[in-house]
C-alpha cells in the first residue's frame, strides 16, 4: 500500500524536472509560447496529486510504525511477564526498563519510518538511474561511476560503526542501572554520608557512556559528510562532461538541465540512506538487546497438556529434589519429605541453609534441577502455572504492594471479591484497625506512589491478600519479622485461624514461630537434617539444640508450651 502511494509520489516528483526541460527546450529555445500554459496546468495538477498522495503515504507509514511499536512493546511486556524468577535475579530492573523504552524506541523509528524510507529512496534511486540512462547513456554511465564508491563507503561505515553502536546502547543501560540503584539505596548512602562517593561513581559510568558516544560521533562525522560528498562528484562530472557535450551540440541544454536536476534529486536519497544507515545501526543494536529479552526462554515452562488441578487436601511431597541457582553450587541436595495435608510445618535452619529456596519450588518460582515436587500426588510440572499458583498463598519477607488502593491490593488475587470479603480478609490479618485510621480507609492509595506504610502494616496487607484467595497451601516466609510483639501476637492468632484446613509452611527465624507448627523440619546445607516434634529434635539433634539454645534460655517454659 505504502509502495503504491510512494510510487505515485515518485512519479509526480520525477516529472517536475522533465517539465523544466520541456519549458527550456520547447518554450524558451524552441519559442513555442503556446505550450507554456498547458505545461503549467500539468505542473499544478501534478503537485496537487502529489499533495494528496503524500498525505496518504504519511498516515499509512505512521500507522505501520506505531503498529510495530505497539506490537513490539506488547510482546516485550507479555514475555517479561512469563519469564521466571531466575531471570529477574540476573537482570536488574533498570536494565529491563532501559530496554523496553530506549531500545524499543530506536527500533520503532527504524522499522516504522526507516524501512519505508529505505524502500522509497531505493525505488527513487533506481527510477532516476533508468531515466538518466534513457536521456543519455554515456553521460549516465560516467556520472554514476560514483555509485560503487558510495556503496563501498556505506558498507564500510555500517561495518565499523555497528559494534560501537551496540556498545553505546549497552553503556546507556549501565547509566540507567546505576541511577536506579542509587535512588533505591539513598537511605544507605545518606546514612554513611557517601553522596560524594556515589556521585563520582555515577560520573565514571556516565563518562564511559560519553566516551562511547564520542566514538560513534567520530565515525558518523567522518562518514556522513563523505556520503554526501560523493554525489557532488557526480554533479561535477555532469557539469564538466555534459557541459562539453552541450558546447559540442551532442546534448541539448534542456536535456543537460534535466539531467542535472535529476542527479541533484539523487543526492536526497543518498543522504537519507546514509542517515538511515546510522539509524539502522542503532536499531540493530537496540533490537539485539530487546531480543535478548524476547529470546530468553523461561526455565519454568507451561506444560503442553496441563492436568486439571482437582480439589485436594494439599499434601506436598518432595522426592530427591536438587536445586542450584547457578548450575554449579547445589543449594538443595536431595530433599525427600512429605508434608501431610492440613498440617503446619516450620522450617528451621541457619541463614542461607535453603529454607526459602525449598518453599519457592512449590509454586514453581524456580525449577528443580533433579527430582520431583508434587501436590496431592500431581507433579507440579504437569499443572498449568496459574492453576497451581492460585492454590498457593505466599507472604514474603519484603512484600510488594502496587500503587493502588488498599482494597485493590488486598483483592489483587481475586479482583471480583466483594467489600465484605476484603474486610474479612483484613480482619483475619488484624489489619482493620490501621486501615480504618488511614486518610481514606480502604480507598487510600498505597505503594510507591501512595501513602507510606510501615513494614508491619505492609506485611499484614500481604497476609490479607494471600488469605483472600483461599489457597490450599500457605507459605509464610517469616512474615512477622518487622512487627512489634503485640502485633505479632495478634497476627499469630490470626494465622492460627487462617491456617486451619490448609497445609502451611512457615520459615521460622524466630523460635516463637515454631509454636504455630505441628512439626519442625530442620534444614542444614540444603538437606533435611532432622524432623519431628520439638522434644524429639531437642533430644536427637545437636544442631537443633545449638540453634535452639542460642535463642532460648528458658527451656522449661518452652517444653511446657510447645
Amino acid at each position, binding site marked *: 500500500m505504502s509502495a503504491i502511494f510512494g510510487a505515485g509520489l515518485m512519479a509526480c516528483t520525477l516529472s517536475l524536472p522533465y517539465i523544466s526541460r520541456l519549458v527550456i527546450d520547447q518554450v524558451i529555445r524552441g519559442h513555442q509560447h503556446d505550450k507554456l500554459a498547458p505545461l503549467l496546468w500539468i505542473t499544478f495538477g501534478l503537485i496537487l496529486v502529489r499533495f494528496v498522495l*503524500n498525505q496518504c503515504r504519511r498516515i499509512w507509514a*505512521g500507522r505501520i510504525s506505531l503498529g510495530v511499536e505497539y506490537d513490539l512493546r506488547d510482546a516485550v511486556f507479555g514475555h517479561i511477564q512469563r519469564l521466571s524468577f531466575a531471570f529477574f535475579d540476573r537482570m536488574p530492573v533498570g536494565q529491563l526498563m532501559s530496554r523496553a523504552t530506549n531500545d524499543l524506541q530506536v527500533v520503532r523509528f527504524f522499522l516504522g519510518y526507516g524501512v519505508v524510507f529505505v524502500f522509497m529512496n531505493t525505488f527513487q534511486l533506481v527510477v532516476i538511474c533508468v531515466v538518466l540512462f534513457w536521456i543519455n547513456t554515456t553521460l549516465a554511465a560516467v556520472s554514476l561511476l560514483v555509485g560503487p564508491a558510495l556503496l563501498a563507503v556505506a558498507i564500510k561505515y555500517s561495518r565499523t560503526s555497528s559494534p560501537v553502536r551496540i556498545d553505546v546502547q549497552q553503556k546507556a543501560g549501565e547509566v540507567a542501572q546505576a541511577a536506579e540503584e542509587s*535512588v533505591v539505596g539513598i537511605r544507605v*548512602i545518606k546514612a554513611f554520608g557517601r553522596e560524594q562517593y556515589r556521585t563520582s561513581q555515577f560520573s565514571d559510568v556516565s563518562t564511559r557512556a560519553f566516551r562511547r558516544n564520542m566514538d560513534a560521533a567520530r565515525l558518523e562525522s567522518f562518514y556522513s559528510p563523505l556520503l554526501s560528498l560523493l554525489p557532488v562528484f557526480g554533479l561535477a562530472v555532469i557539469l564538466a562532461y555534459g557541459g*562539453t557535450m552541450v558546447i559540442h551540440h551532442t546534448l541539448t541544454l534542456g536535456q543537460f538541465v534535466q539531467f542535472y536536476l535529476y542527479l541533484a534529486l539523487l543526492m536526497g536519497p543518498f543522504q537519507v540512506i546514509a542517515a538511515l544507515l546510522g539509524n539502522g545501526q542503532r536499531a540493530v543494536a537496540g533490537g539485539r538487546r530487546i531480543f535478548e529479552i524476547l529470546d530468553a526462554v523461561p526455565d519454568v515452562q507451561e506444560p503442553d497438556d496441563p492436568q486439571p488441578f482437582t480439589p485436594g487436601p494439599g499434601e506436598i511431597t518432595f522426592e530427591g529434589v536438587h536445586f542450584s541457582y547457578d548450575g554449579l553450587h547445589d543449594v538443595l541436595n536431595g530433599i525427600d519429605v512429605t508434608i501431610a495435608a492440613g498440617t503446619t510445618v516450620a522450617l528451621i535452619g541457619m541463614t542461607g541453609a535453603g529454607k526459602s529456596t525449598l518453599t519457592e519450588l512449590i509454586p514453581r518460582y524456580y525449577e528443580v534441577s533433579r527430582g520431583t515436587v508434587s501436590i496431592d500426588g500431581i507433579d507440579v510440572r504437569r499443572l498449568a502455572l496459574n492453576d497451581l499458583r492460585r492454590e498457593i498463598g505466599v507472604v514474603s519477607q519484603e512484600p510488594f504492594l502496587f500503587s493502588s488502593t488498599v482494597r485493590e491490593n488486598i483483592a489483587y488475587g481475586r479482583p471480583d471479591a466483594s467489600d465484605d470479603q476484603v474486610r474479612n480478609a483484613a480482619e483475619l490479618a488484624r489489619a482493620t484497625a490501621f486501615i480504618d485510621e488511614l486518610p481514606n480507609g480502604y480507598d487510600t492509595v498505597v505503594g510507591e506512589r501512595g501513602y507510606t506504610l510501615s513494614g508491619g502494616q505492609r506485611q499484614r496487607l500481604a497476609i490479607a491478600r494471600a488469605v483472600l484467595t483461599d489457597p490450599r497451601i500457605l507459605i509464610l516466609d517469616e512474615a512477622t519479622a*518487622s512487627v512489634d*510483639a503485640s502485633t505479632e501476637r495478634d497476627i499469630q492468632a490470626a494465622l492460627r485461624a487462617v491456617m486451619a484446613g490448609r497445609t502451611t509452611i512457615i520459615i521460622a527465624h524466630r523460635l516463637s514461630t515454631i509454636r504455630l507448627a505441628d512439626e519442625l523440619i530442620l534444614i542444614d546445607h540444603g538437606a533435611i537434617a532432622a524432623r519431628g516434634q520439638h522434644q524429639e529434635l531437642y533430644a536427637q539433634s545437636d544442631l537443633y539444640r545449638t540453634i535452639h539454645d542460642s535463642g532460648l534460655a528458658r527451656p522449661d517454659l518452652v517444653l511446657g508450651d510447645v
Partner: protein
Amino acid sequence: MSSRAGPAIGGRMRGGGGRHLSGPHPEDDMEGLSAPEARRLRELLPFARPYRWHILGALFLTILVAATGLSTPALAQIAIDNGITVGNERVLFLSVIAFVVIGLLGWAIGYGQNYLSSWIGERMLLDLRVALFRHFMHLDLGYHERVPTGRSVSRLTSDIEALNDLVTDGFTSVIVNGLTFIGVVCILFAYNWQLALLSFAVFPFLITGTAVFRVLSSRAYRRTRETVAEVLSVLQENLAGVRVVQGFGRQEPAREAFRRANADYREANMRTIRLSAFYFPGIELLSGIGLAIILWFGANQVLSGQIQIGVMVAFIGYLASFFDPIQQLSQLYDDFQSAMAALEKIQSVFATLPKLHDADDAITLPPLSGAIVLDHVTFGYRPGTAVIHDISLTINAGETVALVGATGAGKSTLAKLIARFYDPQDGLISIDGHDVRHVTLDSLRAQLGIVPQEGHLFAGTLRDNLTFGRPDARDADIVNALSAIGAREVLDTLPNGLDSEINERGGGLSAGQRQLMAFARALIANPRLLILDEATSSVDIQSERHIEHAMDILLHGRTSILIAHRLSTIKNADRIVVLDHGRIVEQGSHDQLIGLQGRYAQLYDDWERATATDVADPV
C-alpha cells in the same frame, strides 16, 4: 546525524516525516519563544560556559558549512551561463574544479563541525547529568520517600536523552538552516528581484500554516508525553512487582492494563502523525506552486532576454533550499517540544532545594564523645500531624539506650532526627553541645553508623559494599568485623570471597545474610555513635546471638541507640525509653521498668507470652 550538508540544486532530500532523522529546534522561533521557554534555556547557560571557546569554534565551522552548501548552485549557474551557453570551456572547467574543491572542503569542515558540536553537546549533558545526580543525592530523605523511584530515574535517563537531540544537533541545525534560509533570500534577490519577490508570494501562506501547525502540534505532543509517562509507570511497577504478579497469576490483567496505556499512547501519536501528514505535504505543495511561478515568469523573462537560462535553473535549485530549512526546522519542533518538557522536569528537580543543608557557619564536628540532648523536640512528616510531641531526652556519652514502643510510636523517626535526616519543627537536638544544624552533615554522618531495617547492597564486590562507610579499611578489618558478628562463614560460601560480585537483590545472599552484611558495614565504619534500627530482624536466632555477644564489645565506649521489637535484644541496654504516640511514657532500666508495672511491663509481658520460646535470658 542530520544531514546538514548544504542543499544543492533541486535537492529535496527530506522525503518525509522522520522526526528521528535529525536534531530539533525551529529557526526564527528563537525570538518567538514563550517567556518560560526562554528562561529555561537561559538556565542551561552555566552548563555551556566552560565550553564557550569550543562553541565559538563550532559556530565558525557551522557558518562555513552553510556557505559551502550555498555555493554549489551558484557555481553551477556560472558554469551554465558563462561556460556552457557561451561555449567557454575554460570557465566551465574552472567552475567544475571549484565545485570539487568546495565539496572536499565541505567534507573536511563537516567532519570537524559535526564532531565538535557532538562533543560540546554530549559534554554538557554529561555535566548536567552528573550535576542532577549530585543534587538527587543531596535531596532530603523526605523527597525520596515522596517521589517514586521510577520518576527520579527517568529524570536521569530519558529526560536527559530528550535533551540530547536539542544540544548536540539542534542548535547547529538552527544555525545552518537559518543561515541557509537568509543566504537563499539574499542570493535570489541579487539574481533578480522581481522573480525573487514573485517566488516569495507563497511566503505568507507558509508562515500562517506553520504557526497554526505549531499550536496544534504542541498540544498533540503534550498528550503523547502524558501517555508515554503512563506507559512507563505501568511498566515500572509491573517489573518491580513481577514476582507478585506471577505469584497471583495476574499476568493477563496486568497485560490488559499495559495494553490500554500502550493504545492511548499510540492514539496520541497518531494524532501528531495526522497533523504532520497535512503540514509537510502542504509545504511541498507551496514549493510546487513556487516552481510553477518561476517557470511561468522566468520563461517569459528569459524569452524577453531579461535573465539568462542559468539564472532560472539556479532559481529552481535555490527554491528547494528555501523550503528545505523551513520544513526541517518545523520537523525539529517536535523534538524541541519534548526537550523543553524534559528540561522543565529536570529544572523542577534542581529547583527543589534540600531543606537540610549545611548552614553557612556550619563547623566540622570534632571527634565526638557522643552525648546527645533532645530539647523539647516536636516533629511531623506532614504539617499539622506531629509524630513526635515535645520530647526531651538526654543520652550520656557511651550510654546504650533502647527505644521501645508499638509500631508507629515514633521510634525510627526519633532515630532519624538524631541522624539529621529531618529537622524538627520545634526544639533543638545537640551532640556534645553542638546544635546538629550548625555542623556539616558530612562530619556528622562520618561519626554516625546506622544499620537500617532493609540491608540494601549495591552492585559491586562484597568488599566495596563492606567498606562503603570507610573505603580505606583493610581486608583484615573486614574479616575481623565479620568474625565478630559470626558471619565469617558467609565469606567461605561465596565463590570469590570478598571479590564476589553482589547485585541489586543481593546476588546469592539470603535476606538474613544481606542484613548481616549491612551490620558488618556499619561496624567497619567504626562510628562514635551507632543507631541500630531493627538491624537483626531478618537474621536467624543463632546469628542474632552472635551479634548480641559481639554488641557487648562493640557498643562499649560508643553511644548507641537500639530499636528492636524483640525485647531480648534490648534488655541489656543501660536505659530503656518507652515511646507511645510520639511521647516518652517511661524510662529506666529493664528491672526498674518491670518494677514500675506500667507500659513497658505490659509490653514485655505481651511479648514474653507471645514468644515464650524466644526469651534469651531470665528476667
